[in-house]
């Protein structure tokens, strides 16, 4: 368990370039060893080495959306990219979501991240019915339009 935690933190640091031990501690507390909460942290091991992870959960009624699976974290070490590790992880996540009875899966990818956008597209994912909007608080002078 402690070893898993450190391997995931290291892998995430390698793939995202940002170390976030507190975030992962929080994820482990909520997602690992908790029964039937429709939250999943899937890990791909290769010869005892952690080479990938996928993070997902079922969310319901956010902005009126019926229950839906969300994949919101994915990392595969550079050494094994293009060996379908990411596909296997995400397909396994889809299977969990199917067992949970949800009919669709969503994810959120930066439009500049063409690598991951292409990856999710290759799995058959297309633009969803929701549009993500953002407001920059830094530029805001406090006035409401």
């Amino acid at each position, binding site marked *: 368990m402690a070893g898993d935690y450190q391997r995931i933190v290291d892998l995430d640091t390698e793939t995202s370039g940002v170390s976030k031990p507190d975030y992962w501690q929080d994820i482990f507390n909520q997602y690992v060893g908790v029964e039937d909460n429709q939250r999943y942290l899937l890990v791909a091991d290769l010869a005892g080495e952690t080479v990938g992870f996928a993070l997902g959960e079922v969310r319901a009624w956010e902005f009126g959306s019926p229950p839906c699976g969300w994949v919101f974290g994915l990392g595969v070490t550079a050494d094994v990219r293009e060996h379908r590790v990411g596909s296997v992880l995400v397909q396994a996540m889809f299977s969990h979501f199917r067992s949970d009875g949800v009919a669709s899966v969503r994810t959120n990818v930066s*439009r*500049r991240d*063409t690598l991951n*956008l*292409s990856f999710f*597209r*290759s799995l*058959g994912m297309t*633009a969803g019915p929701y549009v993500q909007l953002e407001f920059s608080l830094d530029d805001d002078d406090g006035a409401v339009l």
Partner: protein
Amino acid sequence: MKIQKSTTFALFAVLELARDPEVQLATGEIAEAYDISVHHLAKVMRQLVRAGLIQSVRGAGGGYKFSANPNRITLYDVVALFEDNLASDFEVSGASVGTGIGRALQMVGDEIEDLTRATLQSITLTTLLRHAARAEAAPTPVEIREAVLESDLEPLT
């Protein structure tokens, strides 16, 4: 954004050839399959050859073959050969550029352009061909209607 005919023709041709890199097709065969101008397509094919996406095969039974990696080439790579920019159709220029309305419209145009580019850059030829195979396997609206008409529509009892 208005997609030019050349762009659509190029996508038809590249995708048709990428289905099977071993197969070679003549311009006429592709034009016939998509009901498009052979003359116009011939010009497009020459540009695709120059871009290295397809190659010309000489001799009897010659034509064109796909010569790139369909897992790497995206729709954007093809579109960008024929479209100067992906900007939306707001014509904000001259004095209007300096106005608040002009700048706000330009921001909307930039947002549309950004989304268009991200969409095209994220769809590889392989991904699109997978969608195409699924679409080809699915019944057409006419087939669905005919199947329904042919079925016994017994009332539920």
